[in-house]
């Protein structure tokens, strides 16, 4: 199975290459977005969604997800997983100020995605943090 060909890529930010590589590595991944935690897109490889509105929805979900995570006890939110009939949306923290969102189809292997995406988050952290400080 091949990933849906992305039809929109944003800024040409170096993080885009990292996202594109994730799409190729994990079967079923349809798109990915890196954004700031206050809801601005940094880099994206998305099938058809607008990076701006996607970044805002992701930031709001992460903000509310962090309050949900408080219900579990102490400790930082690690990821948010949304499962629908069509697939998964998974949101990961990238350092202190960034967030990675991955869209997949329903057949994607979530365990494999977590494994790959956590490594991607580490790689992205160095790319995203300096940008957020400007």
């Amino acid at each position, binding site marked *: 199975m091949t990933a849906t060909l992305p039809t929109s890529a944003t800024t040409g930010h170096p993080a885009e290459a990292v996202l594109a590589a994730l799409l190729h590595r994990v079967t079923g991944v349809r798109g990915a977005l890196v954004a*700031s*935690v*206050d*809801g*601005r897109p940094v880099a994206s490889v998305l099938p058809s969604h607008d990076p*701006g*509105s996607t*970044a*805002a*929805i992701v*930031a*709001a*979900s*992460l*903000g*509310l997800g*962090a*309050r949900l995570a408080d219900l579990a006890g102490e400790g930082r939110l690690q990821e948010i997983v949304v499962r629908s009939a069509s697939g998964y949306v998974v949101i990961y923290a990238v350092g*202190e*100020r960034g967030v990675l969102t991955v869209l997949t189809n329903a057949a994607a292997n979530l365990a494999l995605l977590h494994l790959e995406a956590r490594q991607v988050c580490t790689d992205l952290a160095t790319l995203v943090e300096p940008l*957020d400080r*400007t």
Partner: protein
Amino acid sequence: MAAATIVASHAFKVVVAGSFAAGKSTLIREISDTDVVGTEAPTSGAEAAVKGTTTVGMEYGTFAVGDGDLAVELSLFGLPGQERFRFLWDIVSAGADGFLLLVDASRPETWPETAAMATRLGGHHATPLVVGINRVGTDVDLFDRVVEAVGALDAPHVACEVVDPASVREALVTVLLLVLDRLDPGEAPDPDDRIPHLP
């Protein structure tokens, strides 16, 4: 006193709206009787020059007006300010009994946007709206210019210094009185009969 008995067992939902940095979160944190649940995230880009964090989801706090059996409980919901979070407004505002629309008198560049919000919130015709003017001090002329810019002339406009609990309380009581009047439009009694121990 039947009306007071009914409202005593009910929490009214008041939604605090306004543009980026109007003072919505500060207001709720200033007045809430309970720990505020919030969703602040660090700002980036041009917004980082205005302040360090911003609301990306919502806030929740509570505020009781009056005391004893006749206390009226307000649930306070804070909205995010930026256009990109506008999709949350309908979600967070669902079931609102009243709106407090905040505007920062010291930032005229936000007034036109606030006017558009007033139009939008006024469109919930059945839901009372109060315009709270932050950082206006005692400047009557500035107050008038904000009122003219924001419009919503059917709604009350009150000074609302978000860092001053007494001022915030007054603005919230203004919202509450409108809500109570709207509940019982036929015979709106003297507000003091319905909410004892107002400030």
